């Protein structure tokens, strides 16, 4: 997908289509990697230290998936986010990852703000996932690992 985007960049000026392709690629990556890692983490057997780290990887992948969703919402709805520039350049990925983690961890610095109701709803969903996942699944896995030591 990214090769396709590079070819498009060489042929002309950057467009919203390039960003759609990049966002789709992020979504495919997070879903595929999430499925593979999830299967390994929640497989039958003893819960090890590595599986706990794998569960943390799933937490990071939630943020990565929301990066793609934010990009889609921002591209489909103009001015859905205030402070997030949706342009096909090197800073986009960094800004989108930053905003996604600020939302997932419910820090909320306020430099990038969701304005449109759909964008706000998506941010709420990510914040809820960011709160519930460590408090439920991650805590459960850590408990199982500690219990298996005794």
């Amino acid at each position, binding site marked *: *997908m*990214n*090769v396709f985007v590079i070819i498009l960049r060489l042929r002309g000026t950057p467009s919203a289509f390039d960003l759609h392709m990049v966002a789709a*690629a*992020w979504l*495919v*990556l997070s879903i*595929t*990697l999430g*499925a*593979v*890692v999830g*299967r*390994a*983490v929640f497989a039958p057997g003893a819960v*090890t*230290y*590595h*599986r706990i*780290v*794998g569960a*943390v*990887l799933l937490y*990071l*992948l939630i943020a*990565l998936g929301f990066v793609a969703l934010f990009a889609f919402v921002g591209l489909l709805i103009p001015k859905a986010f205030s402070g997030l520039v949706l342009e096909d350049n*090197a*800073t986009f*990925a*960094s*800004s989108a*990852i930053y905003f996604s983690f600020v939302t997932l961890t419910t820090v909320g610095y306020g430099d990038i703000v969701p304005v449109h109701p759909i964008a706000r709803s998506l941010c709420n969903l990510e914040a809820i996932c960011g709160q519930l996942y460590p408090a439920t699944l991650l805590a459960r896995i850590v408990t199982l690992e500690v219990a298996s030591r005794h």
Partner: protein
Amino acid sequence: MTIGQGNLLGTLRERYSDPLLTVLTALLLFLMFVVAPLQASGIVVFQAVGVFAALAMMTGVLILSGSAIAALRCWLRFQ
């Protein structure tokens, strides 16, 4: 397209399945929190570093899943 248990990938998966989770986590952290900001700063070298880290991740996914399709999806994302 699932790769059988009897071959090299099946053996690698059985042996390194759990440690690979830690390796993949480290690689993703490196990509998101080191490579992406440095790329955004305009340091071109980190484009190549990012590609190599992504290739390593793809190899990890191939071993962890035993499925060439899963690895191909990650390949499609990065290439």
